[in-house]
C-alpha cells in the first residue's frame, strides 16, 4: 500500500534526491511539500507525477512505461487532480467526508467552460489551492479558508488587464470588502458571514442569475425572504424580470441597513419607484412613520429609566420591558419586507405597548424618589421641632438651676 513514512525523506525516493540538486523550474519543492496535505497523508511525488522513485537511472525512473506523467499542462490540471479526487472509492481511504464532485462541478463553471475552450487565463485547481503546498480548506493558512477566499478570488478578479480581456469589472472585491458582509468576515472574523463562494459557488463558480440571488440571501435572511415572497413586490419583480433583494440592497456592496432606506426621504429606496400620491408611496411613508414612532417611544422610555437610574433607583424590571420593546423594533424592521402596513403596525404596536410600560415604570420610580424626599423633609421637620423644644427646655433648666461648680 502507501508508504507509511514521510516519503520525501525516505531513501527510495530518487525524485527528491536528484531534483533537490537541480536549479530553476525543475528544482524539487521540498520545503513547500512538507506542509502539503498530500505529503501529510503519505503521498510522494510519484503518486501524482508517476514514474519509479526506486529506480536510480533517470531514464528508468521517468520512463513512460512506468506511468511517468511529469508536469501537466495548465489546461490539464483539473483532469490531473480529478484522477484521484473524482474517485469516491479511492478518496474514501483518506477522507470519506471529502466530496468527489468538484471536477464535475468545475466543468459546469465559467472557469471550467472557458478552460475547456482553451482559455489560458481562467482559474484551474492550483490557482486557488496552490501547488505542492496545498493545505486543507480547514487550515487557516489555506488560501481557500473562509476568511482568505475573497483575497484569493481577488488575485485575478482585481487584475485590470486580465479582466478587461474578458469584459469583467474589477470592483467586486473592493465593494465586498466595504460591505456589511465583508466587514463581518474580514474585519470581525465572523466565519458565518458570506464570502464570494457563498453566493457564486466555489468549484461551480458562476453568476447566480437574477432570480436566484434572492434564494442565496434567504440562506440566512429567511424571514425577510418569506415576507417578500408573500408581498405584492414578488409578482412585480417577477413580471419585470428583476432580481429581488438586490434591487434595494445591491450585491457586492451591500451596506448595513438604515431606517433612511425606508420611507420617502432623499435616501429612500421606496421613492425611487413609487411616485408621490401612489399607494406604495403612502405605505412607505406609513411604514417609516411606524418605525420612527416606536424608536421615539423607546428613546422616551430609555430617558425615563435613565432619569430614575440617576436618582439611584434600580430599574431591572423596566429594563426587561425595554428589552422587549427593542426586540419588537428589530422585528418591525424585518417586517418592512412584507410591504404591508397592517403587518408592520401589528408588530410595532406590541413594541409601543412595551415601551410605554417601561417609560411609566421610569416615571413611577422618579415619583417614588420625590415621595422619599418628602418623607425625609417631614422627618427632618419633626427632628427640628424636637431640637427646638429641647433647646427651650435646656434654657429654662439652665435658668432654674444654673451650672454649678463641681
Amino acid at each position, binding site marked *: 500500500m502507501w508508504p507509511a513514512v514521510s516519503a520525501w525523506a525516505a531513501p527510495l525516493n530518487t525524485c527528491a534526491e536528484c531534483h533537490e540538486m537541480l536549479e530553476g523550474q525543475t528544482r524539487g519543492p521540498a520545503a513547500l511539500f512538507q506542509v502539503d496535505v498530500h505529503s501529510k497523508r503519505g503521498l510522494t511525488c510519484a503518486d501524482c507525477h508517476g514514474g519509479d522513485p526506486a529506480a536510480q537511472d533517470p531514464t528508468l525512473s521517468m520512463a513512460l512505461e512506468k506511468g511517468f506523467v511529469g508536469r501537466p499542462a495548465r489546461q490539464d490540471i483539473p483532469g490531473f487532480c480529478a484522477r484521484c479526487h473524482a474517485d469516491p472509492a479511492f478518496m474514501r481511504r483518506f477522507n470519506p467526508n471529502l466530496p468527489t464532485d468538484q471536477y464535475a462541478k468545475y466543468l459546469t463553471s465559467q472557469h471550467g467552460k472557458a478552460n475547456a475552450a482553451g482559455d489560458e487565463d481562467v482559474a484551474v485547481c492550483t490557482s486557488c489551492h496552490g501547488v505542492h503546498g496545498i493545505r486543507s480548506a480547514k487550515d487557516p493558512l489555506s488560501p481557500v479558508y473562509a476568511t482568505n477566499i475573497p483575497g484569493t478570488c481577488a488575485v485575478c478578479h482585481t487584475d485590470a488587464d486580465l479582466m478587461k480581456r474578458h469584459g469583467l469589472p474589477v470592483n467586486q472585491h473592493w465593494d465586498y470588502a466595504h460591505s456589511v458582509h465583508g466587514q463581518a468576515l474580514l474585519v470581525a472574523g465572523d466565519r458565518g458571514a458570506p464570502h464570494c463562494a457563498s453566493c457564486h459557488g466555489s468549484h461551480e463558480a458562476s453568476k447566480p442569475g437574477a432570480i436566484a440571488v434572492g434564494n442565496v440571501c434567504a440562506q440566512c435572511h429567511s424571514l425577510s425572504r418569506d415576507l417578500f415572497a408573500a408581498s405584492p413586490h414578488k409578482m412585480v419583480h417577477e413580471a419585470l424580470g428583476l432580481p429581488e433583494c438586490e434591487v434595494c440592497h445591491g450585491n457586492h456592496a451591500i451596506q448595513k441597513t438604515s431606517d433612511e432606506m425606508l420611507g420617502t426621504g432623499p435616501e429612500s429606496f421606496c421613492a425611487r419607484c413609487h411616485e408621490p400620491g401612489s399607494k406604495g408611496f403612502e405605505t412607505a411613508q406609513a411604514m417609516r412613520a411606524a418605525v420612527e414612532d416606536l424608536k421615539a417611544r423607546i428613546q422616551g422610555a430609555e430617558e425615563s429609566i435613565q432619569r430614575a437610574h440617576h436618582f*439611584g433607583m434600580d430599574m431591572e424590571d423596566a429594563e426587561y420591558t425595554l428589552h422587549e420593546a427593542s426586540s419588537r423594533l428589530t422585528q418591525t424592521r424585518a417586517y418592512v419586507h412584507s410591504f404591508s402596513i397592517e403587518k408592520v403596525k401589528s408588530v410595532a404596536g406590541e413594541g409601543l405597548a412595551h415601551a410605554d410600560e417601561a417609560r411609566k415604570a421610569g416615571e413611577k420610580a422618579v415619583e417614588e424618589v420625590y415621595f422619599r*424626599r418628602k418623607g425625609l423633609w417631614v422627618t427632618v421637620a419633626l*427632628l427640628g421641632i424636637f431640637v427646638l423644644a429641647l433647646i427651650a427646655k435646656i434654657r429654662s*433648666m439652665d435658668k432654674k438651676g444654673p451650672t*454649678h461648680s463641681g
Partner: protein
Amino acid sequence: MGSPMGARERLKSFFQARYNLGGLGELVTHKTVPVHGHSLWYYLGGTTLVLVAVQILSGLLLLLYYRPSVGEAHESVRLIMTKVEFGWLVRSVHAWAANMAILSAFIHMASAFFLKAYRPPRELTWVTGCLLFFLLMGFGFTGYLLPWNTLSFFATKVGTEIASSVPVIGKVLSTFLRGGADVGDATLSRFFWFHIAALPVCLFFLLGAHLMMVQLQGMSRPLSVRSERAMPFIPNFLLRDLAAWSVMLGIVLALSAYYPATVGEKADPFAPTPAGIEPEWYFLWMFQTLKFFPGHILGLEGELVAIVAMGLAGLVLILVPWLDRPAARGQAHWLAWLAGFLTVFYMIGMTVYAKWFIARH
C-alpha cells in the same frame, strides 16, 4: 385619672425592693460635665455612640434579607434595595451612618488628643478608644465586601494582598482573612462572620469598658481650662446630647434620601481588575502612602517597610499617654501638638490627594 408619677414610683420601688439600684443611680446622677470653651468636643463621643447604635439596629434589619454567599449576596442586596419596602432606606442609613461614625470617631479622637484627655488617670480610656477606632475600621473593611460588587471585590483583593506583606505572619494572616488562597466564597463567609459576630463581640466589651471608664472618671478638663464650672450629666448634658444626636440623625437621613447607597455590578472574579479601584475613603490615605513608597528602601521591600511603619504608627498612637510625659505632669509640650498636627495634616492631605489623583487618572 391614674397618675403616671404614681405608676413610675411603683415600678421603681418594685425594682428597688429586689435589686439595689441605688449604687447605679448614684453613678449616673453624680456625673458632671465641665463647662468651658472646648465643651463642644464632648458631643463627638455621644454622636459616635448613637451612630454605632444606628448601625446595630440597621444591621440587624439587613440581616433579615441578606444572604452571605457568592451566589446570593449581590442578588439579596439588590432585593433589599428594590423589592423590600424601605429596604433602600435601611441599607442607605447603614452605609451612611458607617461613614459618619468613622468620621465622628476620628474627630472625637483628634479632640481627645489635642485637649490631652489621655492624661492620667484616663490612659486606659484612650487605649480602649484607639482600639475601638481600629475596630470601626475593621467593620468598614469587612462590610464593604458584603454586597459582592466589582469595586468591593477588587478593593478586598488588594486589601488582603497588602496583609500578606506583613513580616513573618503575612501569608498566614492573608490566608486567615481570605479563608483560602484567593478572595472567593470563603472570604465572603469569613468577612460576614467578622462583621456580624467576631467584631461585634469585641465592640461590646471594648465599648462597655470605654463607657464605664468615662462614667467612673467623668470628662477630662483640658489643661488650659482653669474654671471649675460644670453641669450635671443628667439631665442638662443629656438633653444637649439628644439635640446633637437628632441633628446627626437628620444628616444621615438626608444623605440616605439624596444619595442612596448603590448596588453596583456583581463581582466577576475572572474579570480583569477595572481601573480606578479604591477602598473606602478612610483607608485612602494608607492606600496612597503604599503607592508612594519606593519599591526598595535600604535593601528592604518598600511595601514591607510601609506596613511596618504603619503598624508602628498604630502602636505609637495607643501608647501616646505614656509617650507624652510632660502632659502627665500637666504641661503642654509643643512637640506633642506638632506631631498631632502633622499626622492629621498628612492624613487629610493624602486623602484629598488620592481622591483628586484617582478622579484625574
